[in-house]
């Protein structure tokens, strides 16, 4: 239970056995290799091999990403990842050159497609530029000087067009302008003028910011040019389709590429760990973390892989950076995700999951609190677990929703809520809408229980680290004081309660200031510490959200039902009514499940963990067969 004990392993062996040992450890997946050196000593050969692997992986990744859209892989969420046997992998490795040729071809395609795309966008830009000039029926290479005449295609800003025309009439230059068309901002003109007037014309053009269009590098009339461009665009498209056909012929190689990528990826991980070891020319020393239950297996694996190596296990010392693995009963495991999202426990404290799980379970259900919603939630998440191959944290989350659904179902029966007031079944206890105060008190009571558990865990922590006096003064006295205050609520106990609370309070006043030297200061800090009762009070009040969110679900469900019933007056109305009900209730489930998860987690993080939990653990990350695309099978 709780946090798994870690052992420190030292392996001392011959360098020639190193790869074999790493190989076995990777297959076993139970040892995290720790850095022995203070800083990376540059091991020339390993670094070089690593960078080679790096570039090989990069090329494979490029090819895989490129082929992926063409491949017809089954969705791994439904069918799981493809499996590759070791035999198949051997065969792949034997024809690695061939596969590397495939990668080359793909990278060639990649470049060709890239070039085509660049050309395409260039042509499209030019077409856009030429379009306004369509009515110009002179081949553009004939523009410019022809004998004594200048022929120019010019653009004048629209607001300057009229003034320019007026000016021309006034000045009587040997210049003729023929309107050709309009672009977005300019009027496009053909200007014809005698060579002798060139300086006057240039001055005029400058005054009205007229620009000359050069059409450099183009031949033919704009119409002809655009037609040529369109033709080229067509050709580009055809070529692209041809390339795509070629590529889709290669798609059968996708799995090979992925398998090879994963193989080299695993190799890279092994190589990276080499950098963490110390050694001389012939021997090496490796340090690794191994969970206690795996110690024997790891030892046997290492010695059978390399008989000449020496394996020692050691208890971790105070200042070691120990990685954390949790081990909880199957039913608690889904709740680990709540703690993981906050922070893993540090290796020297208690794993809170087993204490937190029952509270989270109860709170989640109470905040959604509708039997039918619980059934839907459990059914959907159960279906997802059964049919989909979800892994890791996602799986834990879905499992948590499944359990949350169960709890919701139970609370729904207690409160008699089935899709709000749609199906009327007598509550096992009461309907919170009839007597919200009773449920509010229940919420506070449950909060109080969790806070007590938190304080007790904090005391356990103190006792574990040998500070029994602290446990008595900081936690037991508070428990006494709080219990006294709680007892005062019940009239029958009020007499005793006074003394219990008072003795707790006196104890606290006397002890809470113990870090102060001065006796007066000590008493003052002691009295001030009683102010903490406000913190506990607000913690308890915080649990009122259990009632509030539960009521919210119920009332929203009722709103949905009422709205739907208003519509259900004829056949069409019944159809719309059904849609409103189904959609509305699904929306309500989604919003409230999210709310219950968020607020349920919050109660753990702030009100519960705040009492005793530190967190800050580093997850155990053993050298293992962690692949990206395929599952490598050892057969």
């Amino acid at each position, binding site marked *: 239970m709780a946090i798994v004990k870690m052992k420190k392993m030292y392996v001392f062996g011959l360098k020639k056995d190193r790869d074999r040992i790493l190989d076995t450890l990777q297959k076993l997946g139970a040892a995290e290799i720790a850095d022995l050196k203070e800083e990376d000593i540059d091991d020339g050969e390993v670094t070089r091999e690593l960078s080679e692997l790096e570039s090989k992986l990069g090329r494979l990744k490029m090819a895989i990403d490129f082929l992926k859209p063409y491949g017809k892989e089954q969705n791994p969420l439904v069918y799981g990842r493809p499996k590759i046997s070791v035999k198949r992998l051997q065969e792949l490795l034997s024809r690695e050159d061939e596969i590397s040729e495939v990668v080359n071809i793909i990278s060639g395609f990649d470049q060709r497609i890239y070039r085509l795309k660049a050309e395409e966008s260039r042509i499209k830009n030019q077409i856009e530029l030429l379009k306004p000039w369509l009515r110009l029926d002179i081949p553009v290479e004939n523009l410019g000087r022809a004998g004594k005449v200048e022929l120019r295609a010019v653009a004048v800003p629209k607001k300057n067009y009229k003034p320019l025309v007026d000016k021309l009439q006034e000045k009587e230059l040997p210049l003729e302008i023929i309107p050709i068309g309009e672009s977005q901002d300019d009027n496009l003109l053909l200007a014809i003028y005698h060579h002798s007037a060139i300086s006057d014309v240039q001055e005029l053009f400058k005054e009205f910011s007229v620009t000359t269009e050069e059409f450099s590098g183009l031949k033919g009339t704009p119409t002809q040019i655009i037609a040529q461009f369109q033709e080229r665009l067509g050709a580009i498209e055809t070529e692209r389709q041809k390339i795509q056909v070629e590529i889709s012929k290669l798609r059968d190689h996708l799995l090979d590429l992925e398998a090879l990528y994963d193989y080299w990826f695993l190799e890279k991980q092994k190589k990276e760990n080499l950098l963490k070891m110390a050694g001389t020319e012939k021997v090496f020393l490796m340090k690794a973390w191994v969970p206690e239950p795996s110690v024997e297996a790891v030892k046997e694996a290492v010695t059978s892989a390399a008989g000449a190596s020496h394996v020692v296990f050691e208890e971790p010392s105070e200042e070691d950076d120990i990685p954390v693995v949790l081990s909880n009963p199957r039913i608690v495991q889904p709740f680990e995700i709540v703690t993981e*999202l*906050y922070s893993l426990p540090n290796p020297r404290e208690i794993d809170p999951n087993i204490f937190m799980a029952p509270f989270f379970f109860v709170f989640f259900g109470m905040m959604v609190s509708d039997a039918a919603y619980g059934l839907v939630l459990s059914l959907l998440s159960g279906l997802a677990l059964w049919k989909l191959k979800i892994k890791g944290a996602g799986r834990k989350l879905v499992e948590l929703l499944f359990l949350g659904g169960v709890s919701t179902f139970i609370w729904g029966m207690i409160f008699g809520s089935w899709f709000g007031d749609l199906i009327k079944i007598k509550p096992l206890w009461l309907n919170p*809408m009839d007597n*919200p*105060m009773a449920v*509010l008190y229940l919420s506070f009571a449950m909060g109080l229980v969790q806070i007590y558990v938190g304080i007790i865990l904090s005391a356990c922590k103190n006792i574990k680290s040998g500070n029994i006096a602290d446990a008595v003064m900081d936690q037991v006295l508070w428990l006494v004081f709080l219990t006294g205050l709680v007892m005062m609520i019940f009239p029958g106990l009020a007499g005793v309660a006074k003394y219990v609370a008072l003795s707790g309070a006196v104890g606290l006043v006397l002890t809470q200031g113990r870090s102060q030297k001065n006796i007066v200061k000590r008493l003052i800090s002691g009295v001030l510490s009683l102010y903490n009762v406000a913190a506990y009070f607000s913690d308890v*009040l*915080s649990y*009122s*959200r259990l*009632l*509030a*969110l539960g*009521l*919210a679900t119920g*009332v*929203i469900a*009722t*709103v949905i039902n*009422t709205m739907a019933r208003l519509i259900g007056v004829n056949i069409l109305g019944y159809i719309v009514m059904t849609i409103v009900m189904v959609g509305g209730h699904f929306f309500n489930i989604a*919003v409230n499940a*999210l*709310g219950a998860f*968020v*607020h349920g*987690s*919050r109660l753990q*993080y*702030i009100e519960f963990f705040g009492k005793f939990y530190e967190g800050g653990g580093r997850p155990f990350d053993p050298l293992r067969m962690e692949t990206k695309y395929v599952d490598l099978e050892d057969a």
Partner: protein
Amino acid sequence: MEVTLGQVLALLGAAMAVFLPGVGSAKGVGMVGEAAAGVVAEDPNKFSQTLILQALPGTQGIYGLLTGFVVMQKIGLLGGNLLPLTTYEGFLVFAACLPISVVGLLSAIAQARAAAAGVGIVAKKPEEVAKGITYAAMVETYAVLSLLASILMLFGLRFS
């Protein structure tokens, strides 16, 4: 039907409980959506994480609607026969609507700020999204408390 001032006040309270938190939530959800769109433009895979953050300031609007609905039920508007409320009774209902109306409006916007900042966490460290959600949920506490106050007040009122 004779309309009393009390009925007007009660309905005003219900309307206020719906529209003020509704406005706050709409503004808040919009703010977080803007921030989220920026992150998703870089990495579309972060859609689901940012969507959760965006949904958080949306609850105030729901709480408001819920309070408005409880008022409507209480004063018999949904059943079709509006109770003949006195002016004081109308004020009582109006007062009960105040907590969720005001706190709903303001907390939705405050929560949206925290959630939009949480979107920044998703951009840089997506694995820490739970922390961003928790920060935003801290703000929500006050909306939940005011909802609780409003609803308890309304449940406590009895009109003949």
